[in-house]
């Protein structure tokens, strides 16, 4: 290497590979880099292995312990037994959880996607954009139990909605709003700028561009963001604890009735002690299965949409 190049390396703060001192230390620089690369790869492989193993172990353990309880009856009957839930099934909890998530996705999805659209395509003031982003980040930092408390005092007590699916869904929707917004925003930002420019260059308004190109193009990502938001809501207990979820109820007939929910039911089953632990694993099995299926569906749908145009 010429002296000139070495000097430039020093100026940029890059250690030049071949200097006299390195030679004296015994390990040639090339070898040192080789070992460093090796270590890095080893470390990455170990970390990956550890995380994959722990997740797989957790899922398989729960599926293994829970699978013996699963039967058509468990999925279609209401909980029963002296200690509630020891026998019978979890059907009302499944429908309850789906209703809570569905309400939350509906309530959060529309403002979240609208906010993302506004931020990416319509907002021209940097200050405005920064403040909206800040608010959304703040929402994502609120502890879920605080959201539950808020929804309890505001929706359940002040507005008099009572403990019902709607109140619980509203609490959950605040929780998943930033999640959906950020994913939607990312999907919109990934849209090539040239496409948007090409639409503008034909004289089309931003609204037309959003309606005819952005939304159809990003639909896969958006649906998957909504589904994942629903999964997120389905796993949360704290927001619905005081606002809509109850220990036992039949299938709710409207959104203004309280309902059972899988995570709360699971908590109660564990809290009741050893007798109901068997059905607790069954409930966990169902939860994990529903969440995994939702995630798979989300990923598959996003891929399907993308394939359609890539060919």
């Amino acid at each position: 290497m010429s002296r000139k190049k070495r000097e430039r390396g020093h100026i940029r703060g890059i250690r030049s590979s071949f200097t006299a001192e390195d030679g004296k230390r015994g390990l040639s620089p090339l070898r040192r880099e080789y070992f460093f690369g090796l270590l890095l790869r080893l470390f990455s492989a170990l970390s990956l292995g550890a995380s994959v193993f722990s997740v797989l172990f957790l899922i398989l353990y729960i599926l293994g312990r829970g699978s013996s309880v699963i039967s058509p009856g468990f999925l279609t009957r209401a909980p029963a037994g002296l200690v509630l839930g020891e026998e019978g099934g979890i059907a009302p909890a499944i429908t309850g959880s789906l209703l809570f998530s569905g309400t939350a996705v509906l309530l959060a999805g529309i403002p979240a996607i609208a906010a993302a659209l506004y931020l990416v395509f319509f907002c021209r003031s940097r200050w405005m954009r920064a403040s909206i982003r800040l608010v959304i980040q703040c929402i994502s930092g609120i502890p879920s139990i605080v959201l539950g408390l808020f929804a309890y005092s505001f929706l359940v007590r002040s507005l008099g909605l009572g403990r019902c699916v709607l109140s619980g869904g509203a609490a959950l929707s605040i929780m998943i709003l930033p999640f959906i917004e950020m994913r939607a925003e990312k999907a919109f930002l990934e849209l090539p700028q040239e496409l948007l420019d090409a639409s503008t260059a034909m004289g089309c308004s931003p609204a037309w561009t959003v309606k005819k190109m952005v939304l159809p193009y990003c639909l896969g990502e958006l649906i998957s963001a909504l589904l994942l938001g629903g999964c997120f809501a389905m796993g949360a207990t704290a927001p619905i604890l005081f606002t809509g979820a109850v220990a036992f109820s039949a299938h709710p007939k409207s959104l203004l009735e309280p309902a059972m929910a899988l995570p709360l039911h699971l908590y109660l089953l564990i809290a009741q002690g050893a007798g109901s632990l068997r059905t607790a694993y069954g409930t966990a099995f169902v939860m994990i299965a529903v969440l995994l299926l939702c995630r798979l569906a989300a990923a598959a749908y996003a891929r399907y949409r993308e394939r359609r145009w890539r060919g």
Partner: protein
Amino acid sequence: MEELERKGEDSGEESTAAMELRELSLSYGRKTVLDRISFSVPKHKITAILGASGCGKTTLLKCLNGMIRNLREARLSGEILLNGESASALRTEELCRRVGLVFQTPTPFPMSIRKNMCYGLRYYGKRDRSELMRITEEKLRMAGLWEEVKGELDHSALKLSGGQQQRLCIARALTVEPEVLLLDEPCSSLDIVSMGQIEEMLKRCRERYSIILVTHNISQAKRIADEVVFLHQGRLLERGERESFFAGAKREETRAFLQGI
């Protein structure tokens, strides 16, 4: 009196100039990108804008079709006349429609060929299917693409080759009937065959549209341009008809560029 004379000039030029630039300058903050550019674009001719990379060619095109207005930090001064009408009086969307722009890289929309062609038409309120089909066919024929894609109008436009995609983009730009068509190095990412096809197409389009072609490919300008404008560091150095421009470049910088120095 002077004003009257100038008006007389305007109306005289209206018949020949599709677009006229008067002292057009553009700056981003303190940086001047375009410096007092004045020239006129004759109707039904191909005007080539030559210049090295970074001399402001693309920016100039964005000024001409008004897209520069969407950049908040851009400061535009001077005047652009579109068929004798002041462009600054037009809304950006109207200006964009009347002055079409095709980009360097092909930008087919992620939808079928048919929907690509109908995208702008539907925006301007055309709903009648047979009318949409007629325009689609007419413009695709003009782009020399009809025979290649007529059986697969409902296939994704992304499945076309690069050259076909670029011809589709030109055809799509023509659907909204612009008066002037701007092309920003439309062949720079294409092979020689596609380049030839696009050049043929532009020669055909010349009969109906006035074309401004930005290119750094000198031989392309020699092949198809009627007028040549040479930009250098944001300033217009020289312009003229093709033969006279290439035969006798007056400025040092122009000669250096033409000789590839």
